[in-house]
């Protein structure tokens, strides 16, 4: 589905991504974890064609991102960035509606309206649908942006720290939601997460990054190892089995 082939990205000569090679099969929820500055957001930006890699390439369903038409890619891939400070005074419904833009090109049909209604309902945004974004709390705004990405209805979804600003109930709801989308609707979802336990509990695969490199990737069971995680985060971490789950304690 997504092939990342020897991608490099430098800022002012400093390598932020080096030799990143990853292959994400269709369907499933992949978490990217790693300490701050590991290059997670940069990798997601490159995967979402917001940045061009300095070397290497990214292909999506056989389509090379840097060559493909922006409009075609927008029908296959949706991306939520880490910080969404949309300054525009749009209503929540309008913002979510713009998620349909790649499909409707400004002429929304019944399918588009249905998708918007569904996305609003899924994120519990109906009571806020006619509010302006600048009248929402950070968490509500985050949910509005996630709803927009869902309305885009793409095979591939990239979310950079989507659980930021969210309370426990909404965080669990959203991670469950994207997991179901991945498992039941065959979508390929990549999320950057801070919470290792969230990643271990809900994701099919975990990619661990540090210093611009992918250290390891595998199933949660393969990666939830105390020694490895302690090394990655440079903090003592122990892993325990609790209620049938692997839980990291730090």
């Amino acid at each position: 589905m997504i092939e990342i082939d020897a991608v490099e990205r430098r800022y002012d000569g400093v390598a932020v991504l080096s030799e990143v090679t990853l292959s994400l099969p269709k369907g499933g929820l992949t978490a990217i974890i790693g300490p701050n500055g590991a290059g997670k957001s940069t990798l997601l930006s490159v995967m979402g064609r917001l940045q061009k890699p300095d070397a290497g390439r990214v292909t999506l369903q056989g389509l090379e991102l840097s060559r493909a038409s922006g409009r075609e890619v927008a029908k296959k891939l949706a991306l939520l960035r880490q910080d969404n400070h949309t300054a525009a005074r749009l209503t929540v419904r309008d913002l979510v509606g713009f998620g349909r833009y790649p499909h409707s090109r400004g002429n929304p049909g019944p399918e588009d309206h249905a998708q918007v209604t569904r996305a609003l309902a899924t994120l519990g945004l109906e009571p806020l649908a006619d509010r302006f974004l600048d009248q929402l709390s950070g968490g509500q705004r985050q949910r509005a942006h996630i709803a927009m990405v869902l309305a885009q209805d793409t095979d591939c979804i990239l979310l950079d720290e989507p659980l930021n600003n969210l309370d426990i109930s909404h965080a669990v709801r959203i991670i469950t939601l994207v997991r179901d989308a991945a498992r039941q609707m065959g979508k390929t979802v990549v999320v950057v997460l801070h919470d290792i336990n969230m990643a271990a509990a809900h994701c099919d695969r975990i990619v661990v990054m540090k210093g611009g490199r992918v250290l390891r990737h595998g199933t949660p069971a393969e990666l939830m190892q105390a020694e490895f995680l302690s090394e990655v985060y440079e903090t003592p971490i122990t892993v325990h089995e609790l209620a049938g789950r692997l839980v990291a304690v730090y």
Partner: protein
Amino acid sequence: MPQPRSPRPRHASLLQPGPVARLLFPFAVLLTLAMGVASLFVGVSHVSPSLIWAEGGSGPATEVLFTSRLPRTLALALAGAGLALAGLVLQVLVRNRFVEPSTVGTTESASLGILLVMLLAPGLPLPARMAVAAAFGLAGTALFLLVLRAVPQRSALMVPLIGLLLSGVIGAVTTFIAYRTDMLQSLGAWSTGDFSVVLQGRYELLWIVAGLVLVTALFADQITVAGLGRDMAIGLGVNHRAIRALGLVLVALLSAAVIVTVGIVPFLGLVVPNVVSLLKGDNLRRTLPLVCLSGAALVMACDIVGRLVVRPYEMPIGLTMGIVGSAAFLWLLTRRRANVA
């Protein structure tokens, strides 16, 4: 499906997309029509529907109506709509509420272009003059964006400040050239917005504004998406660069069309889009008609006031607009504190 009512914050009831916002459009239509009719019949020489009826379609009153009042009213409406729209597009694309063509260098650069035409090719027909003005305006806006990129922006107010500085420099160059070539007086004469000189045969270029409004409407969604930022635009498959370029060309053409026909009308592009944004948000598809209508109505209102206050003389529109505009701008500053950018 019944929609649950949203809990609305007390202080923001007017700013909510509620009943007030829904009535805005019909209200704006009525207001614009009322101003249009008033503008036809207010002035030094007496023109009224009954007089024209009595003349039976030919006579001095009818003559005044068709050669002066009607062109003037149309020019006011077109210029008002065009400048308000230019302000709107600029604010959306620059993502700053405090910009308008005259605070980012577009207007001053266009004026410089017109002065150069007057000096070097005085015989150039009006459309060609407008094209030169638009080209200069576009170059000025591009220069502004370049400077903006080079300067770290710590606050939303930095943006118009940089723009005003740049406008000042370009304006100084224009004044200097005009001074050295003895054109200072005529520069002042045509650059001050004035609708009293509009007559049949001298405003028709402004109809370009109507075409530009239509083009903007066609791209409304894409401009709104571009206003959400580069990353958001790319994510939604909108060519951010191309739309930004198109928007800036539209702004330059709109400004140039107004400047070459009636001169500079300040504040309009700032005030109207801001008020509409507060009431109705930033979705261009929804706000564009409202911005154009309100711009037209406001310019007509200011012009009518200018005709009435010092009868039988006239106050130039720049003065009335300046008073109304600066008052409105101060109100906006206090209103916009929370979400300036």
